[in-house]
Every structure is written in structure tokens, then in C-alpha cells.
């Protein structure tokens, strides 16, 4: 039996990575999990220059999940390359750098900068609901998504994963658009835009008013969208959205994801990813699957 997966030409030791923004660049979690046992580490989004992010409160708990509006606080690409890449390279895991920006030029600058760095894949975040410019602006219009995919592909030396927003009418259409733009893979879903009101203070709970909803509460929506995207495109899909257990991850694989990301559940249990890896392996043994690919998309 083999846990390895091939995502756009990059071989991961197993199909499990983490959702960008829930794991930093891995350093904080290294005390709790063996990073060597993750198929890949997907870093927190990094931009061409440092971003201070949104005012606090940046998070709120919601029923079966949470809402965040961190606003892509990040140290900028220079410090990231100097500190975070060498840290992750110590481990036997693939490095996926999540890239954010406010304009096409911003994204391209980071992608170009990463061309000579020792990283394995790029994930382009065109779906963050918490920054006013850029981000989501590219992620809700198929034409804009296709264009930015084409633009970053010009500079990219590593395979490009386009991260899609669920805040659209047709996820299939968006997946097709980035595939047409030359994306090597897609990841979905990013968070669903939500809002929460403190009825005693009569004010929004988050300083940003709206935030991205994540966690187990959104998992069925994510499974449905992965299924729809899988039926629309040929490129591999990294499925995410509310995965908190091996069972949740397996659902995603069965409807067409080639790999999975664990996000918000890392906040509930910092070692949850290890349980997801072990649980997928146990399921494969139990069910007689020889490889992860054998289970991908078999539920039609």
C-alpha cells in the first residue's frame, strides 16, 4: 500500500497538507506535530511587502466553526525567504507557498522572487474575503481569474495551484477559468463570507465587520464544491473546508480531490493532521486500496 500522491508533477509522501493561514510557516506547530509526516506544508500567505493586517478582534467562534478577518498579515517575501523556507527545508515535506497580493503586479513580483527559491509549489490566493483590494476581486470573476492565472504562470517556475473562493455562483465555472489560464492544480474552498453581531454591544463582533467562516460547519458545502469542480476540470484538486478528521478527508478524496488540507481543526487540536494521516492509512488498509489515487473520485 502506498500513501504517496502526485500533484501536478510533485510527489508528496501522503495526501495531507494544511490550509494556508492556519499553520503559520510550520514553526509554531513543530512542537506538536512531526512535520516530516505531512505531505506538504502550505504556508501563510506572503506578499511582496509586509502587511499589518486588520484591526482586532480578528476572530470569533461560530456554531461548529469560526470566523476570521486577519487580513493576511505577513512579514513580506524577503523575510519569508530568509527565515521560513530554510526552516521548512529541514523537513521531509513539500513546501507550498501561498501568495497574496493587491494587484496583478504584486502577485507576479512574489512569484518571480520565488522562482529561484527552493520551494515545491505555489498557491495563489485569489479568494481572501478579508482584504478590500485584490484577493477576492480576482476570485469572483472567471475572466479576471483566468487573466491572473496567465499572468503568474509567465513568471512561475513551480507548479501553480489557484485557490478558489466558494463565494461564487458556479465553482465549476471558476475552476474551468483557471484551468484555461494554465493552472496546474486548484485548491478549494477558501472561507465563506459571514457576519456576526454582538447583541449586547449592538456592534459587529469582528473589527472588519465581515469575516471568513471556516470549520466543520462548512464541510458539506466544501465536499459539494470539490465534487462539482472535479467534474469540470482535468487538473488535480486539493480539497479543503472543515476537515477535522480522517473521515472528512476521505469524503473529499472520494468525490475527486487528489489531496486534502486541514485548516481550522488545527486550532482545536494542534496534532489533528497526524490523526488524519493515520486515519486515511487505516481506511485504505481496511478497504483494500493500494494507492490514494485508487480512491480519488470513485463516488460519482
Amino acid at each position, binding site marked *: 500500500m502506498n500513501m504517496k500522491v502526485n500533484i501536478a508533477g510533485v510527489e508528496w509522501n501522503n495526501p495531507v497538507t494544511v490550509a494556508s493561514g492556519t499553520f503559520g510557516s510550520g514553526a509554531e506547530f513543530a512542537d506538536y506535530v512531526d512535520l516530516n509526516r505531512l505531505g506538504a506544508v502550505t504556508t501563510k500567505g506572503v506578499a511582496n511587502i509586509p502587511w499589518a493586517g486588520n484591526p482586532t478582534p480578528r*476572530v*470569533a467562534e461560530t456554531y461548529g466553526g469560526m470566523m476570521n478577518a*486577519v487580513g493576511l498579515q505577513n512579514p513580506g517575501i524577503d523575510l519569508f525567504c530568509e527565515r521560513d523556507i530554510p526552516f521548512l527545508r529541514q523537513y521531509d515535506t513539500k513546501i507550498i507557498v501561498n501568495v497574496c497580493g493587491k494587484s496583478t503586479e504584486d502577485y507576479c513580483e512574489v512569484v518571480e522572487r520565488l522562482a529561484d527559491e527552493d520551494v515545491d509549489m505555489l498557491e495563489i490566493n485569489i479568494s481572501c474575503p478579508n482584504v478590500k483590494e485584490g484577493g477576492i476581486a480576482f476570485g469572483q470573476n472567471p475572466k479576471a481569474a483566468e487573466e491572473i492565472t496567465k499572468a503568474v504562470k509567465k513568471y512561475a517556475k513551480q507548479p501553480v495551484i489557484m485557490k478558489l473562493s466558494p463565494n461564487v455562483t458556479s465553482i465549476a465555472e471558476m475552476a474551468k477559468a483557471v484551468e484555461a489560464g494554465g493552472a496546474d492544480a486548484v485548491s478549494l474552498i477558501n472561507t465563506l463570507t459571514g457576519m456576526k453581531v454582538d447583541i449586547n454591544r449592538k456592534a459587529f463582533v469582528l473589527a472588519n465587520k465581515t469575516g471568513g467562516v471556516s470549520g466543520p460547519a462548512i464541510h458539506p458545502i466544501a465536499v459539494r464544491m470539490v465534487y462539482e469542480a472535479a467534474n469540470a476540470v482535468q487538473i488535480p484538486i486539493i480539497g479543503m473546508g472543515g476537515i477535522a478528521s480522517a473521515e472528512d478527508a476521505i469524503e473529499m478524496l472520494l468525490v475527486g480531490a487528489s489531496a486534502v488540507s486541514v485548516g481550522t481543526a488545527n486550532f482545536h487540536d494542534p496534532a489533528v493532521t497526524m490523526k488524519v494521516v493515520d486515519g486515511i492509512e487505516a481506511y485504505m488498509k481496511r478497504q483494500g486500496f493500494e494507492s490514494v489515487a485508487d480512491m480519488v473520485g470513485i463516488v460519482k
Partner: protein
Amino acid sequence: MSCKRKETAVVVSQEQLANGIYSMWLQTEEATEIAVPGQFISIYTNDGSKLLPRPISLCEIDKEKKQLRVVYRVTGERTGTEQFSEMTAGDTIDILGPLGNGFPLEEGRGKKAFLMGGGIGVPPILELAKQLDCEQKQIVIGYRDAETFLKEEFEANGEVYISTEDGSVGTTGNVMDAILENALEADIIYACGPTPMLRAIKKYAEEKDIVCYISMEERMACGIGACLACVCQSKEKDHHSNVNNKRVCKDGPVFLSTEVEL
């Protein structure tokens, strides 16, 4: 390599100290060993619909028995803290920690200290009062009303000055009023409490040029420095964030007052 983990603690006792304020002792396996005053633990509810841990500061650390005490406020009906308050001896509860940086004890050696707590910022001052080895230990604690929880335990550990908002006990007003009324002086301050109180203490310390450590609070998600939810503004550019933000959970919750903007 991985070494830390979420552990399952056992409730040793649960007691209501005041209206909405509860005290719980927890039997731990590992968390107590390295705990210091000013640190916190993340406590998880047993309710799957409540995903995020509740960060609660340590009120007492009993290394011999491997027990931790948390004194916490129930924040409302159907909240995680309400669930904690309903737990009784023998119940199990998942915790992570100890987390964050505690109060620097060495700094207080040989000095006249203020140990200041306000509201639900009072509990972490107790273990500090027990462990701090200083020249003069002036414990200044502020409450809303006559429900002066933990007062007797503070009295066993230093000189205690109390302020109450309604004037029912001690000085009427806040902890700063108690300092003025009693003409107290110090050359180091340790404080935990609501932001307006910390802001006043920070200003006082800077005017008097006194070293001051404050323990801050912010809404958290991960509790371990990864998610960047609980940031506070730092005076200088922070080396980790590369912007003027520090993480309350990982870089704090205790900060030198001059490091942060309130």
C-alpha cells in the same frame, strides 16, 4: 520534533467564588511541570459545536500535586465557560499548555513592587504573589463591588490594598485611586486587567520611570502563535511579524509596558 501535546486533565474541585466567578483545580499529567505565573492554558469544551479553546490564565500552580488552578468568569449562558462551571470533581477536560510567557520574577528581586490586578485580571496575580521574592510586596487589586474574591489568599502573601468601583470595600474607584489614596510607591510593577486599567498603569509607570510588566488579553484562536488573531500593537517593528504587531499568545501575554501601544 514534536513533544508538546493537548492533554486530558481531571477536575479536582469546582467552587463558585462570587457572582459569575468560578475556581477550578485541575489534575494534569505534564502541564504543571514547567508552568510559571502569568502563563495561561487553553481549555477546550466537550461540545463539538464550540471549536476554539478558551485561554484562561493560571491562578495557582501546585507542582507537588501536579495541579493547576484557574479562576474564571462565566461569560454568559450557553458559553464554553458556563460549561466549565458545570463540571465537577472527576470530570475530564482537555487542555493545552502552559502557553505564553509569564511574569519575569528575577526582575523583582530586592525591589518594592506593585502587583496589580483588576476584575478577571486578579487571578493570575495570586501565583505571582506567592512566587515573587521582592523587598516589598504591595498587592493592589480592584473589583466591581464587595465580592472581593481571592482577597484572603492575597492577604496571606503580602500587603493588600483594595479598590471597588462602588466603594463598598477599600478605596472607591480603581487600582490607581488605591495607589494615590494610600500614597504607595514602587520601583517595579506587575499588572493584569482590562485595557483601560493597563493603559492608566502604563502611563503612570512611564511618568514615574518605573519598570512595568503588563499582561494583555485579546481574542485568540490557536493560542500558539500561528494564526495571528490575537495581535497587539508594538512600539517598534516586531522581529517575527516584520510589522508593528506582536502576538499576545506567543510573544506575551506579559509585555514590558514600553514595548506595546495601548
